[in-house]
């Protein structure tokens, strides 16, 4: 597994562009500031506008429960709340990446 780390404080546009240039299998975003709805909406719109439909996106952070269905509705694959184990996250990433590659070969 390779992790391409962008550092903190990236705009949604930067995240999308980086994912595209690096041709990644999965995008992971962490937000703790409370701005997840606005930012994730912008990220997903940007991703779709660039014609990307096959990269799963997951989110971790302090997310109010009522927001989760809205976020999932945007096409975000998974939301992890505080208390999630590292194993669970790694397993998710692993499966999501394999899945994506399988689909690509179909």
């Amino acid at each position, binding site marked *: 597994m390779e992790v391409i780390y962008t550092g*903190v404080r990236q*705009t949604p546009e930067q995240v999308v562009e980086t994912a595209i240039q690096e041709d990644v299998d999965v995008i992971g975003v962490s937000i703790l500031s409370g*701005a997840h709805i606005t930012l994730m909406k912008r990220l997903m719109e940007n991703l779709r506008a660039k014609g990307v439909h096959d990269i799963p996106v997951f989110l971790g952070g302090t997310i*109010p429960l*009522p927001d989760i269905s809205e976020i999932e509705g945007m096409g975000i694959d998974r939301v992890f709340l*505080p*208390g999630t184990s*590292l*194993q669970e996250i790694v397993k998710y990433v692993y499966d999501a990446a394999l899945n994506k590659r399988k689909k690509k070969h179909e």
Partner: protein
Amino acid sequence: MFNEEALEELEDKIRKWEKSTVVKSLERFRERMEKFTTLSGITIKNVYTPLDVRDIDYFDKLGLPGEYPFTRGIHATMYRGRLWTMRMFSGYGSPEDTNKRLKYLIAHGETGLSLAFDYPTLIGLDADDPQACGEVGVCGVSVSSLKDMEIIYNGIDMSSITTNMTINPPAPVLLSMYVATAEKQGVTYERIGGTTQNDPLKEFIAQKSYVFPPEPAVKISMDVIEWSIKNLPLWNPISISGYHIREAGATAVQELAFTIADGIEYVRQLILRGLNVDEFAHRLSFFFDAHINFFEEIAKFRAARRMWAKIMKEWFNAEKERSLWLRFHTQTAGVSLTAQQPFNNIVRTTIEALAAVLGGTQSLHTNSLDEPFRVPSEFGAKIALRTQQIIAYETGVADVVDPLAGSYYIEWLTDEIEEQAWKYIDRIEKMGGMLEAVKKGYPQREVTEASYRFQKEVEERKKFIVGVNIYVEGGEEEIRNVPLLDINQEEIERRQVERLRKLRMERNNEAVQSALNKLSKAASRNENIMPYVLDAVKSYATLGEIMNVLKEVYGIWVEPPIY
């Protein structure tokens, strides 16, 4: 304090006890764990006795409350005189929203206000910066110019309140806005009171809301302190913070050691500027975490007071008694709260708050049960405040000073934590102090490793968290019916952006430019920037504009990855 004969007798008895009573007991039940450790990994025996504290000289290590080394508290009567300040962090949305909130708090008797800023403000961006989009007014109030500060304090008499501002790289700007607003109200400098967090080193270690590289960041922070010492006698220009270090996953020992090492660095820097230690030491304040491992936290607070007093007295030759005091604010541990079965968080916060009080804190913020999910709801914040009130008024723990002193365990643990913390401090001293250590990434790496270790211990079930790895039953849903703090983010952002647009049109832009140029030159000449920032603020230069000038001169920080 013990007589040698009695100790020898005890030693003998313990030997027998271990061979008979303990063995019998172990035959019936094995102990729950092979090894018991505190949250910080300090190994704990089954029982502590006078033997464990035989080398502790009472006068040297404890003394009396209000006397050196202040282990038992900085005041003689502690909470029998005045209770700790229940300082709850607030501030949200637009300046107008916060103004209303502050007025409400004041009407209910609060005089110590505490402002939370939104993320763009925290990192020095204007509300109309493209990077601020979606963040304006979310985790605190949005402040982009003096205009916003004037609105926040509209109708509030700034001579009769104090304000704690949680602000770091932009501290000179926010402090200037506060001072300029007070000045407009006719409040003289002698009466302006409050705190700026203004602690850059912990930003690099843990909190990560840095802007400038370490050296200029420290320089700017020292400018704020120096200027405040000379102009604002009631201002606490820095709050040296272990809180964020702990929240990032540090152990109690690391929190203590790194915070004290930060303090040492600042004291040195100020002395290098030609200040006398007794001129400023009493204005330094601290900020710690109260975590869930009850006794360890109490021991940490007691050790902190003792270490700081010793450092100020013996290393820096401070003479005034107040220079030796470690005054601190405490917040309960946000990281100890869980998203699972969130009502349990009330219990956690209660235990942590109790540790802070038994540890002798000067002020306390208790977290709200819903913080793993969101900015606290009013419902959650109220229970959190009531928790403190119950501890203060019902339990009786505030009626006696340092009640746990003399407990063999507590005294042993206080000593142990202190000893381990000194080891870290020695290592940092060898590197040339905390600024150098931070540049090398040393504390960053230590915290990262501790945090990873803890997470692994939880996943391997060597440490337990109810609802997470023991007694698991989901249960996040419990919280769903608790109403969220209702803010119309988009509307707030639109209004803030519009206000800035108008401001930029209506202000005297030549005056702004001239003030910014002067600031830039002063910064390049390495002068204290405070007077120039204050002038720029008064000309209605915005937060972002002032920060950009400083970024041009001082550069910006991109963190090397820590792994």
